[in-house]
């Protein structure tokens, strides 16, 4: 059953599906996190469709509305982790550290049969759990990561605890390169190395973009791969759009060290029209109805689909 779910589509098909869903959503809503779909599609598709050892979802295919935050008076509270399957000693866990990739992550859940397409229609709607910046209770999320740089530390703590318990599952973190500007990222790598936490594996979307624009114009971070090695991680560079390279990279032995796969990505892979908006790609909001119409036609063609019939 689980094997069928994971291999219903090829990972390439899942990646294309992610871009199409995020594109359609962004056109209908006059903007969205399209560039993140361009850079991240293969990485998230590979994680969910191949690499992660997850069980079947435990939460309803159509997400429930927001049911309150953690509080002593809210005993039925639960996170959105159930979309990644149950918690079990042999299963993997995944944190989406840049919660701004939520739209892309939700599209991945749909493409891999873990959430119904209706889930995306609830995106950023009042009263919905499918929040714009992924919250703990959002589908596929287990912790809050909207404040960037905290994901790897949380994964390290969880991984250390799981190791103490004798769990065999890994703790995966999906990261973005902007996070290396936060000092906490370096603290986390050092802590992993010092405590030999090697059941943490991360893949980082190195798209060289951040909210203000190109990272080099905001604050240069230098050779992050070399810096990470110096801090004690095992680092492997891959082409973010080559699934084969990711498949190979994850085989790299890393005893006593966390593994960080640095995925060199293009922020407009699959949607070349987006290059016009470089370097302001964090959230692409259309400047006019004309631009929206033109992007609709051009990007639809790039993605091999008909233009979206959206409400004007």
């Amino acid at each position, binding site marked *: 059953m689980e094997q069928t779910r994971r291999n219903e589509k090829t990972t390439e098909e899942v990646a294309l599906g992610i871009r199409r869903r995020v594109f359609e959503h962004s056109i209908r809503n006059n903007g969205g996190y399209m560039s993140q779909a361009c850079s991240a599609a293969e990485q998230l598709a590979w994680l969910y469709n191949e690499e992660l050892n997850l069980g079947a979802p435990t939460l309803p295919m159509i997400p429930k509305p927001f049911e309150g935050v953690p509080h002593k008076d809210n005993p039925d509270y639960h996170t959105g982790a159930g979309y990644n399957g149950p918690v079990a000693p042999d299963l993997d866990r995944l944190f989406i550290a840049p919660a701004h990739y939520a739209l892309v992550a939700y599209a991945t859940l749909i493409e891999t049969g873990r959430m119904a397409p209706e889930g995306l229609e609830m995106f950023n709607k009042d009263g919905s759990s499918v929040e714009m910046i992924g919250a703990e209770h959002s589908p596929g999320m287990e912790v809050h990561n909207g404040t960037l740089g905290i994901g790897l530390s949380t994964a390290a*703590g969880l991984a250390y605890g799981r190791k103490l318990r004798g769990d065999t599952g890994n703790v995966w973190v999906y990261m973005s390169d902007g996070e290396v500007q936060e000092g906490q990222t370096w603290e986390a790598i050092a802590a992993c190395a010092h405590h030999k936490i090697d059941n943490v594996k991360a893949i980082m979307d190195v798209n060289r973009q951040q909210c203000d624009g190109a990272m080099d114009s905001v604050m240069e971070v230098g050779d992050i791969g070399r810096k990470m090695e110096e801090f004690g991680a095992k680092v492997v560079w891959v082409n973010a759009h080559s699934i084969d390279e990711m498949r190979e990279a994850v085989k790299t032995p890393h005893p006593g060290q966390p593994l960080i796969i640095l995925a060199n990505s293009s922020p407009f892979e699959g949607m070349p029209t987006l290059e016009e908006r470089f370097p302001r790609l964090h959230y692409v909001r259309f400047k006019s109805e004309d631009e929206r119409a033109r992007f609709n036609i051009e990007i639809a063609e790039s993605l091999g689909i008909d233009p979206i019939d959206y409400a004007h």
Partner: protein
Amino acid sequence: MVEMVSRPYEAAFEKHAMAHDEVLCLSADLTSSCEIDKFRDNHPEKFLSLGMAEQNMMSFAGGLGLAGYRPFLHSFGVFLYRRPYDQLMASIAYPRRKVRLMGFLPGITTPGGMTHQAIEDVSVMRSIPNMTILETGDATEVESICEAADSIDGPVYCRVLRGSVPRLFDTPIKVGEMRELETGNDILIVSSGITTEEAMRASAALKGAGVSVRHLHLNTIKPFDHKTMLDHIASVKGGVITLENHVVDGGIGSLMAETMADAGVGKRLVRLGLKDTYAHGGSRAYLMRYYGLDALALVHGIEDLMGQKFGITEDDLSAARVEAVHSLVKAEGL
């Protein structure tokens, strides 16, 4: 005279940690300063050194909580919230992780000056949803803080005393219960932490001057039993005075102000503590005198509250005995 207990936390933590598999000991480069160096040496399998990296330590502890552990974080109180506030919020408080924040050197109990003095920690922690706040005022409370903190279903911040600590009480902390130290009916004194010993000294002198004092000691600051406190307020003829090792904004002075205003109590409230000011480095006794946190300051505050002078001098206060434990008639009263 009062019994002084040396390093009460050290043995208490070891006993508690070794009795509970899920308890882990985390330190941020202040291991001997937080009296867990012996624990580190004796039980390395339960000890994690996380270095001078509190932001990581907070989120790491959140991850340990997610894995079912109850980490005790040891550092100076000030380092557990100022730098890693965002991580405290997102990784610990929001998800209600069972993380125990053991904050040593509360308020002006350190000569380290501004960077080391947690003078607004209670205020910060009170405003964090899901947070519990406990504060130790004597050796018995330090000895029982681990068990009390670990009973909380969620995160808890504790103000912990270290080194040589007086024993004022003979019963452990009961979370949520205030200690009724004096039961008079003229005025109400509310204190917590190290100010309780000062208030005991002051109330002994005040009794000698004919003032009927009601004195409550708080070890649980959040959640707070407003109803019981209102009964105490109603049982005194005069007003209320608070004395805290903290800024007067957001701490127990504010807590009393809110309690009284919410209930429409029209009595006077005098709040003693650091008054919208940082402190500087110095000895505890010097700082308590300089910033008006000691027994003499309390007497002057009560004179203001009652509109009369009692002629109590510094000599009277140093002569005022704080009994060696002190089986208070109703120590765990109410």
